[in-house]
């Protein structure tokens, strides 16, 4: 049925485009070419710094005095091996990966629970509870990292995985996005579940989660990028080098370059490694990511 309606519409649009193209071939073509040129130019400009970093990460010394020197060198394996092994980036990346995975999993579980309670339970003072969670948006890490440092240090968590994960587990944004999404699930489905006598855990596992796959992937990517890119909090609460994350590891590497100990090509190799995980996730899951953002704004 849908196909029948769509087919003529598409046909119509195609005919319209053709007639338009026949009427003004030159101007349209020129404009299209200009548009592509502008876009390619802007995109190149945005990618340029990373291209330079990628090229320099393959060279021996990283001394590049002009644009003409921007040709890949033959030290890829050597540079990346040195950074990963000798400068502990394997370790830093693993710590970052662990931190991000724990934060994503924990936040997701806690937020699904909280959003389920808020949407599907008949509770007194529900709006107040939701406000209590939403109000934490006013308290991002930079506003409270001083007292948080004192608290976490008092708890004896310095240099531990607990310190860089647990304080992140409550997420107003994720609870908010999930609540919006749950409210958009038709109540007829919910009522059917009630008539069938489905318990809350089964309801979450077999009704809510399957109907929220896209949104869960989207918020997971948002949370992973957020966690992976944390810098300030690990910087202050982790002071043992072996427990450090990749972001701060990069700053340590820069200290070595200023001290003349390593070359810039190694710093760029470290930068490429640190960029890779969030970039890959963004490219792979861009569609659910964009959809999750649209909900967040509402």
């Amino acid at each position, binding site marked *: 049925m849908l196909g029948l309606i769509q087919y003529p519409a598409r046909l119509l649009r195609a005919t319209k485009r053709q007639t338009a193209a026949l009427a003004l071939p030159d101007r349209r073509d020129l404009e299209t070419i200009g548009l*592509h040129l502008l*876009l390619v130019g*802007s995109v190149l400009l*945005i*990618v340029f*710094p*990373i291209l*330079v970093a990628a090229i320099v990460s393959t060279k021996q010394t990283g001394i*590049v*005095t002009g644009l003409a020197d921007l040709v890949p060198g033959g030290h890829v394996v050597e540079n990346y091996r040195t950074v990963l092994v000798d400068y502990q980036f394997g370790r830093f990346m693993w710590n970052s990966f662990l931190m991000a995975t724990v934060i994503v999993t924990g936040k997701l*579980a806690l937020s699904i629970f*909280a959003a*389920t*309670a808020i*949407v*599907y*339970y*008949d*509770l007194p003072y529900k709006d107040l*509870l939701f406000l*209590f969670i939403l109000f*934490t948006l*006013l*308290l*991002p890490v*930079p*506003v*409270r990292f*001083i*007292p*948080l*440092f*004192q*608290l976490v240090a008092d708890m004896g968590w310095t240099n531990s995985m607990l310190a860089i994960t647990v304080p992140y587990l409550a997420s107003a944004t994720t609870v908010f996005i999930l609540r919006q999404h*749950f409210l958009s699930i038709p109540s007829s489905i919910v009522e059917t579940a009630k008539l069938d006598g489905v318990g*809350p855990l089964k*309801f979450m596992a077999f009704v809510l989660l399957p109907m929220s796959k896209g949104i869960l992937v989207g918020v997971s990517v948002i949370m992973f*990028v957020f966690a*992976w*890119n944390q*810098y*300030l909090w690990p910087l*202050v609460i982790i002071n043992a080098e072996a427990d450090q994350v990749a*972001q*701060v590891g*990069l*700053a340590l590497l820069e200290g070595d370059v200023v001290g003349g100990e390593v070359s*810039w090509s190694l*710093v760029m190799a470290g*930068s490429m490694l*640190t960029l890779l995980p*969030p*970039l890959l996730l*963004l*490219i792979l899951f861009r569609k659910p*990511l*964009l959809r999750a*953002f*649209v909900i967040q*704004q509402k």
Partner: protein
Amino acid sequence: MSSREIYTDRRTAGLLLLPTILVSLVFLYYPAARAARRALYSSQLGLDDEFVGLENFAELLTSGGYQSRLLLTVGFAAVVVAGVMVVALLLTFLVHEVGTGKSIYLVAAIWPYALPPAVAALVFIFLVHPSLGVLSGPLATLGVDLDWFADGRQAFVVVTVAAIWKQIGYNVIFMIASMNNIPETLTETARLDGVGRLRRLLWVYVPIMTPTLFFLVILNTIYAFFGTFAFIDIMTGGGPSGATNILIFDLYQEAFDFFNWGLASAKSVVLFAIVGVLMYVQFRLTDKYSHYGA
């Protein structure tokens, strides 16, 4: 009671809410309260605390240094917000207008969202390093003598450009969603009326996108105030001679370089107030524009 509220067992509901509420209380609300209380005490960590009332706040209000850092931060935020939004708006428009290859262009425009600030900072140091930078040579031929390790104004510009670069992707994500929502009929009408592309962007699209643009102004301001710490820490350390010492870096130094915890707590409270005002403005604006149904 809405038809969605199918469960009534309060104990289960409490258990479901407990983890989020517990973490919020212990790691968000309690530290905030602790900072507010600590701000009323003097002394450095380890020495005995002496109650001084609002003295720390009085010191901040009257300190010329703090005032100029506040001003610097506001200026930095203004340039970052304006820069990001102009670049992102034009880029989004180009992606919106193009036919073939749209999704590839979109990914190429939003990827800096994933870019870690520490990476952006390091790559930028390397690009415009006064003696080694790839761009230092070409810029010198244009008459720009890069000396931002010593020149405060140049350091400010370099950090600003790096911070803008990192934030483009995030803005494009929201702008493209908003632009794609604009009814095709409006675009067609504008085209038939012979309205050029740029004028269509400025006089047709931008007014419709106002709610999203306001939302982004607030988001970008918060980013400029707080999310740029790694740039400052890695690129300039707040220098040269305080030229890039924005409030969040100043706060970090107060606590971890000077160990002035009373004053650092007072500064945390000031930052909290700034976030509060920004969020309040956003809340009111969202309310005001919600009837557009955007």
